[in-house]
């Protein structure tokens, strides 16, 4: 009964729009759901460094190289920031990283697609960061304080990334025939996976209702996806790019773009681990972790020695 009361009070706080802070009481399931979401989010930043990092050494101008390097560095920063925010819920960074490396934890499936041309970097900035922003703008009003604050900060940087991505898309769409072909090809490959980023339809999304009730999310997957489509179809048309969806049409009445059905088999396949790059991404992270073991051990041992000699000195 005590617990029930607590939850009621908790729900009342949520309903009043109050922000939950780390030391506040919260239902265990709320805490678990947030750990899951936030650590997934952190992992996505880290794994997301790989497809983009793949092109740093090949960027076609010094300016673009610096922008990309800086972007990937930002993502590492976001990851760090989100791991810290997750730690406020009692989940240590080591634990959640272990979960990633042993395959228990997920990360955004979009990063299981490969970057095959430079145009992919432009399109990721535009579409993938564009989709992330829509999601994160909502999460910036999340009921959990540390998450909401992390989102505010991250959102600001991602808006910048999206702007840079779209600028690159526009340059290529306005470039040589080869550049135009390259950028359209990248849009063709990334459009549908980006739509999948918002997750399954509302009716197939078991967590959604609960997360909305708890004020973690305030919109459903389908609502978010619709705003993404509305915004990005417009942006595509502005620079003369086609969206690879024959069913796409504008509905004058609703003011929304109607779009075709997502290939959910592909979606679930990639989620299950059978995407084009799942195994490679995890292998790469594992290798980095294993190769770094001796470094982390050395740092710990050195810190231990330092502490010891400081203690002796005092």
């Amino acid at each position, binding site marked *: 009964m005590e617990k029930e009361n607590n939850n009621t009070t908790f729900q009342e706080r949520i309903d009043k729009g109050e922000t939950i802070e780390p030391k506040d009481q919260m239902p265990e399931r709320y805490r678990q759901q947030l750990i899951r979401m936030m650590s997934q989010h952190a992992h996505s930043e880290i794994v997301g460094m790989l497809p983009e990092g793949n092109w740093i050494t090949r960027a076609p101008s010094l300016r673009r190289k610096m922008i990309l390097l800086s972007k990937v560095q930002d993502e590492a*920063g976001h990851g760090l920031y989100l791991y810290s925010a997750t730690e406020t819920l009692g989940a240590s960074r080591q634990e959640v990283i272990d979960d990633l490396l042993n395959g228990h934890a997920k990360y955004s499936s979009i990063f299981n697609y490969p970057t095959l041309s430079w145009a992919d970097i432009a399109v990721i900035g535009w579409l993938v960061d564009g989709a992330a922003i829509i999601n994160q703008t909502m999460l910036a009003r999340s009921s959990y304080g540390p998450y909401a604050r992390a989102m505010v900060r991250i959102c600001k940087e991602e808006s910048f990334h999206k702007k840079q991505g779209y600028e690159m898309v526009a340059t290529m769409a306005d470039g040589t025939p080869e550049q135009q072909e390259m950028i359209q090809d990248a849009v063709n490959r990334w459009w549908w996976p980006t739509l999948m980023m918002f997750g399954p339809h509302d009716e197939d999304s078991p967590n959604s209702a609960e997360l909305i009730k708890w004020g973690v999310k305030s919109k459903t997957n389908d609502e978010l996806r619709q705003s993404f489509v509305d915004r990005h179809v417009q942006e595509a048309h502005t620079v003369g790019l086609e969206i690879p969806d024959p069913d796409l049409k504008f509905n004058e009445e609703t003011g929304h773009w109607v779009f075709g059905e997502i290939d959910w088999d592909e979606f679930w396949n990639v989620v299950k681990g059978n995407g084009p790059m799942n195994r490679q991404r995890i292998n790469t992270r594992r290798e980095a972790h294993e190769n770094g073991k001796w470094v982390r051990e050395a740092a710990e041992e050195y810190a231990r020695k330092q502490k010891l000699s400081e203690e002796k000195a005092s």
Partner: protein
Amino acid sequence: MSTATTSKELTEEEALFEYLIRLADDRLILGHRLSEWCGHGPILEEDIALANIALDYIGHAANLYEYAVEIEGEGRHRDDLVYFRNDVEYKNLKITELPKGDFGFTIARQFLFSSYSYYLYQLLSDVEDEQFCGIVKKHFKEVQYHLRHSREWVLRLGDGTEESHERLQNAFDEIWMYIGELFYQDEIDERLQDEGLAVDTESFKADCKEIIIQTLEEATLKVPDFDQYMAEGGRQGLHTEHLGHLLAEMQHLRRSYPDADWE
């Protein structure tokens, strides 16, 4: 294509152009090697730190190239220097082009190059050319950070575990033959030194050695022999075979579409 013209034929502008290119090439190539760590670092903080340093280097290089093409006055873009020179036209020190190796090797190189850069930039800050001087001063703080960062890691790895000690010692032993070139100078340096436009590396060699020796000793490492054979040639475009592969990767896209604008 490669062979350096002697200073007699060079105007002051041409000598300065060459001097700037040398500085820029070092930073571009080392920045490239560091950027290869992106997403593969031993801890997230180091992923960030190495990307950050890579970005510093590439940024320094960009500024230096930009000034170089301005001095040259032929309307070239800095990217022309980056993407359309072959390896025999690159003038970077060999130490910067060696493959990234393990984290120990990367740290050993960072520490040695940063020690050198620290003194170099300190003295270059007084160079008698306002614009050049401005570029150097803007970056000196970053160079100081690079030295601090790498020095701390030398201590951690050298005086960490047995494995880390051994790996770092091997890294220093392996890379040592490339540090002589840090102090290389020829008629281009001398010519500019007379005009107060370049630094005499001899003037800080002892200090630089000192900080290296002191750090390695503090890190419980053996200091390799400074008098061993030292590799040179980078300043004349005579590189190792690694640079060509690096450039193939770096330049492939840009060269594939020479008329395209990427901004």
